[in-house]
């Protein structure tokens, strides 16, 4: 046992020595703060650290004054080894200070990379307080005030114009009373409205017909607008993108960070509801991810809303983080099916193997989620008629698939199951997918 220990210690010693050598050799190149900033962001350092504030990990500003470069390189790249193998007393003390919450291992970073990051921390400017928050707030406001003021002004001026024109006419008439010739001219048959407005012979058409024509055009437009309004009233809300209590971005989570849809909407393959995730799902990441780097050491205001809903205090002692007054979040429902329509996610996602995007659109690009499909019955039916479903692999559909294959064997391309590529084509409609009781009961 004793020789064994010696040999292990020896290995570690050699390794450390090598590393120090390599660090010092790299150290000759000047650390690059710009590269450091990139690395800082790419490795999500901000998830746990802020420059000026203790978050999950310690505040980083001035870290170069507290620790040596060698120490930092070893700590950042593999703090576990540093603690357990090298048994660095400072490292162990730091670990214990933070309640045994281990930092991630970043062996992907070269020692030079680490020093770049340190350089960035060294040179990073002090941010001004809470600018970002204010900015988002003012942007978020739905600002129609200017438009209303303009419209009001137009209305007032038109009214004044009308009154003035009237006054002018009256004055003219009063003036003309004295001159019979002018009066006669004034009383002479006048050109009709359409004759004045429309050029040439168009103006001489029957004014009644013209009026009707005008009414038809304006009426048609109004009716179209009315129809648009009314279909939203009966629940067709395509494009509906309400403001949510938390500005959760699918674009960020599903698009940029490529979090699997099913990570949050975990019941989509078993239940009729894909279900909005419970807040403990959010907390899996956001216990750590607080985006303090973006908000100047403060926790992101949106993430704070999660904490508020759970009555969670990130600075409390372990075991006492959750307060007694959690308040559930009232999300605004976007996809509202009428009560008499039954839809089951599991049937479509698990059995029918449909992508989320088929109905929900490019959700991974939506900063604010909006209703992509009309959710009208015609839309459902269209898909049920045309969607080609892969059922060959599902034992439930085996007999159906065999029947279709047999039909193709006898009827060749005349078979209704014949797809262009010669394979079996099966749509939901061919298996009763258009029947009322599949969705209404």
């Amino acid at each position: 046992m004793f020789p064994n220990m010696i040999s292990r210690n020896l290995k570690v010693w050699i390794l450390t020595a090598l590393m120090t050598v390599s660090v010092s050799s790299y150290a000759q190149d000047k650390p690059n703060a710009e590269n450091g900033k990139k690395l800082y962001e790419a490795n999500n350092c901000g998830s746990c650290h802020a420059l000026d504030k203790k978050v999950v990990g310690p505040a980083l500003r001035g870290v170069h004054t507290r620790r040596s470069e060698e120490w930092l390189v070893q700590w950042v790249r593999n703090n576990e080894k540093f603690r357990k193998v090298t048994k660095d007393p400072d490292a162990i003390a730091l670990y214990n200070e933070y309640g045994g919450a281990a930092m991630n291992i970043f062996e992907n970073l070269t020692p030079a990379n680490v020093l770049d990051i340190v350089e960035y921390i060294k040179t990073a400017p002090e941010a001004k307080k809470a600018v970002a928050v204010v900015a988002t707030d003012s942007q978020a406001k739905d600002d129609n005030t200017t438009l209303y003021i303009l419209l009001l002004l137009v209305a007032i001026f038109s009214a004044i114009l009308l009154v003035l024109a009237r006054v002018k006419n009256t004055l003219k008439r009063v003036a003309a009373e004295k001159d019979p010739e002018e009066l006669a001219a004034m009383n002479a048959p006048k050109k009709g409205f359409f004759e004045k407005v429309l050029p040439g012979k168009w103006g001489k058409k029957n004014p009644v017909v013209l009026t009707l024509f005008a009414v038809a055009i304006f009426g048609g437009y109004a009716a179209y607008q009315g129809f648009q309004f009314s279909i939203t009233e009966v629940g067709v809300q395509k494009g509906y993108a309400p403001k949510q209590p938390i500005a959760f971005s699918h674009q960020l989570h599903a698009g940029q960070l490529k979090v699997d849809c099913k990570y949050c909407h975990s019941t989509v393959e078993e239940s009729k509801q894909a279900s909005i995730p419970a807040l403990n799902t959010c907390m899996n990441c956001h216990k750590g991810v607080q985006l303090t780097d973006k908000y100047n050491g403060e926790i992101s205001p949106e993430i704070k809303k999660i904490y508020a809903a759970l009555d969670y205090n990130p600075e409390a002692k372990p075991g006492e983080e959750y307060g007694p007054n959690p308040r559930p979040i009232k999300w605004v429902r976007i996809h509202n099916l009428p009560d008499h329509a039954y839809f089951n996610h599991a049937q479509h996602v698990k059995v029918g193997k449909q992508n989320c995007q088929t109905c929900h659109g490019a959700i991974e690009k939506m900063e604010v989620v909006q209703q992509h499909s009309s959710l009208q019955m015609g839309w459902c039916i269209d898909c049920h008629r045309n969607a080609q479903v892969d059922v060959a692999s599902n034992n439930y559909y085996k007999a159906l698939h065999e029947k279709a294959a047999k039909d193709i064997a006898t009827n060749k391309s005349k078979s209704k199951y014949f797809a262009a590529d010669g394979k079996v084509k099966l749509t939901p409609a061919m298996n009763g997918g258009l029947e009322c009781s599949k969705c209404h009961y």
Partner: protein
Amino acid sequence: MSNNIKYWKGEDELNRNPQFLTAQKNEFHDDLPLDEVFNEDAIELQANRRDFLKYFGFSVTAVALAACQKTKIRHAVPYLVKPEDVTPGIANYYRSTCGACSAACGIEVKVREGRPIKVDGSVDSPISQGGTCAVGQASILSLYDNERLANPLSNGAEQTDWVAIDAEITNSLKKIAAANGKVVILSGSTHSPSTLKAIESFKTSFPTTEHVIYDAVSYSGILDANESDFGKRALPTYKFGSAKVIVSFGADFLGTWISPVEFSKGYAINRQPAVAGGMSKHIQFESAMSMTGTNADFRFPMRASQEVLYVATLYNYIAIAMGAKQIPVPQQGELAGNSIKKTAEALVKAKGTSLVISASNEVEVQKIVNGINMLLGNYGSTIDMVNHSNQYQGSDKKTAEVLAGLKSGAIAGVIFYNTNPVYNHNSKEWTEAIKKASLSVSFASSKDETAALCQYVCPDNHYLESWNDAEPRKGTYHFTQPTISNVFNTRQAQVSLLTWANALVAPAKDPFASKGIFSQKLQASPYYNFIRANWAATLGSDDAFNGVLEKGLYAVAADEGVASYTGNVEALASYVSANAKASGVDMVLYQGIGVRDGAYANNPWLQEMPDPVSKVCWDNYVAIPKAMAVKLDIAEGDTVNVKVGDVSYTNVPALIQPGQANETVAMALGYGRTHAGKVAGSVEKGFDTIGVNGYAFVNNTGNRSFVAKNVEITKGDDNYSLAQTQTHHSIEGRDIVRESTYAAWQKSPNAGNDKPATHIYTIWEKPEYRKDGSPNHLWAMAIDLNACTGCGSCIVSCSIENNVPVVGRDEIRLRREMHWIRIDRYYSFNSTEGVLTKDTEIEAADGKGNFDHWQNVNVLHQPMMCQHCSNAPCETVCPVLATTHSTEGLNQMTYNRCIGTKYCGNNCPYKVRRFNWFRFNDNDKFDFHFNNPLGKMVINPDVTVRTRGVMEKCSFCVQRIQEGKLKAKREGKSPNEVQVLTACQRACPSNAIVFGDLHNPESEVSKLHKNERGFTVLEEINVQSSVKYMTKIRNNDSI
């Protein structure tokens, strides 16, 4: 027609009452009140131009304004922390124990997103065996009853603070103890080991406490007889599954007697003609027409007051055959045609596999019954006295002592637990007695008749909110676990008792200790800790205890051996002689199938469920025999005055009940509640009381007698229309039900079903999906008329599953009930000379004037729901294609397409379509449960709540079909592995309903559809219905 029996559903139909016949032809029960509408002053048919413009302008503006509101914002609120086992949209099932009555059936509770929405039987429970009764089904609604007490009451005032109330009660108890006064806990039958231990703990703290058990409907007769004959005050375990000859004296064992679900399951086994050892024979002697009586092969009218004579006569016949000593009585109580003698012969032939029971509360009758069963050697085979039942334990004698003690002041404190003697015992005396007590507490969950008089009401939890255990049979333990946290500020009675006794048990380990955010919110109920401690010896580990909870059952091996019998029947001779003579009119006070003893009277589902025999809803009535009706000139709709001693009711609705024994009348208990609530009646809240209280006629001296003697019946001077569903659809002499006899069936299995319909024409081609080898499903049902007892559990189960609204008495009078499944009940005459088949024969029998044949009717129950016809007549007449056919054989109903023409309902040969005359939800005119947020929690989220103006009907539980199919698809199983149970099938306590896929040759339904007994109703009109009925086979060739 396949047989010549003349069936009829009601007297009007039998007598071809011309008014009734015209009414049958009409689409609407009453003429539509069009004239009334047009004659109203408000509507002037000649409006002038100005009025027209005014109304026009107003409506346009109103519509425009109404349209100006923004689209309603709907919210979705997810869990803060999702419980691990809960998946939104998917139900969880928990095993528990039904608390609706003392039978304690093992149940399975369906819970959606933390809200129990359905109760069904647990297949592992030896009591329920997977079935439920209507009361058990409906009991879930009592959880969501917004008339339950939200807080404890102290001297009538609500108190939110339990601590204050506890302090007051503990003080009172201590004062009583200091003065050496007595305290009585008057509880209903309880066989929960932990509850009994909690009561023991209470007794330890307050040693002057006595625990007395009182049952509203008493079994003291049997209990006392067994105490004297076997030295054990307990009900035996009856094994109907082993009995080949069953003789019942007035016991409604399929409906209300002791443990009806358990008995129905056992009974059904031997009612199959094909069962090994032959079909059982069921002989019933009774006064009132009970549901069990309707299922009997032989039913003999008996005067209830003379029961002891009949039982003694039966004993003597058997004693002769077995060579035993007779009871020395001079008089023999033989009935016409030597019925008792023949019954004795049948019993002797089947000795060891026979069973004789009686519902009488007379100890002497029960002693003779014990003697009969002893002679026949039934103990150990069909009756188990060793592994006895614990289901009812009440003592009438001790209850009377409590009443006397309270009146004399010997008892200073009284605690009512699950008892309501002010309503169901001697109301007047209890009212005075409770006032004398220095401490009176009730655990009632609502302010019932007794609780209203108590100083303190400490509302108990509903059983679905409770922890508990139960021992319905010796060695068989059921467990109760909460499926929802408390809806109101209530507390389990056991916790109250333990709190007052200062005997709460500290938890061995907090089960929620490691649940993160929940650790601050959740606390295990103190009673859970108590139960765990109580079971620590047998089920110590978490795994063992949780395993038992999951199964809902813990059983120890049954004891062998036979209880020793020390009875002496001959000594009863003098009692028999003294009680042999009957005079005047007897009145049988029985429990209705729906509201039973009245504890659940405020449950609208039970009130709306038609009585299996009379088909009356929402009322009790005096059932009188035809002979009496003729004598007193009483017709349907008349009332009678009833008087027994100095108790009398005037103008009680009368009902002429075929099968009611002459010189007897009957009345259901459970009605006449004055402090129940908005459904059954409440004086306090101003709701009319439903029916009259039959307990007033119960003789409370000695063992309480539910047979009143010397009843005076006179014709009342009022009319009353009972809400009856039986005559709502007439059969017009068509061949709808088929029956035959066991002997005929043994000769040819298609007996009674051997004349196929002729002249079958069709204009339709056989659809693709009906052909064999279709890869789809073909859903179908098979209903066994031999198994169906008519109990109505399926009706309630269907209503719960499919959000069927309660419509109330007035709407039922207008024939607008909404039940998707009904049970049609057909009578036919069966005199001692045989079945009367022809109208002329019936007229001749009527002409004799004694109406004996009205006492002898055969009854057939036929569940009727949408038959999902392949050539459905409803589908072809719908102008908007709202009802169409699916490729799985379902007749689909699409509510959102329906415009309410009712053509389909008119064209349906089975009359199973129901029209929504009103919007029943959120409508205070239908003040049941659909109009309040709490009552709506019972709604099944997978089924649409229908609105006004649409047709609806049985869907074959399409939501369950879709769920079953999806499960198979998700798991990649073949279509033949799809498991679907419809709500009616799942609830049925006699396995009468089978549902499944006809394209699966191995399915039970496929086999039954090929059975020779199978027939479809109205086969001749060739609608190709998907429901096959199995011909009823009666074992009534000879006794």
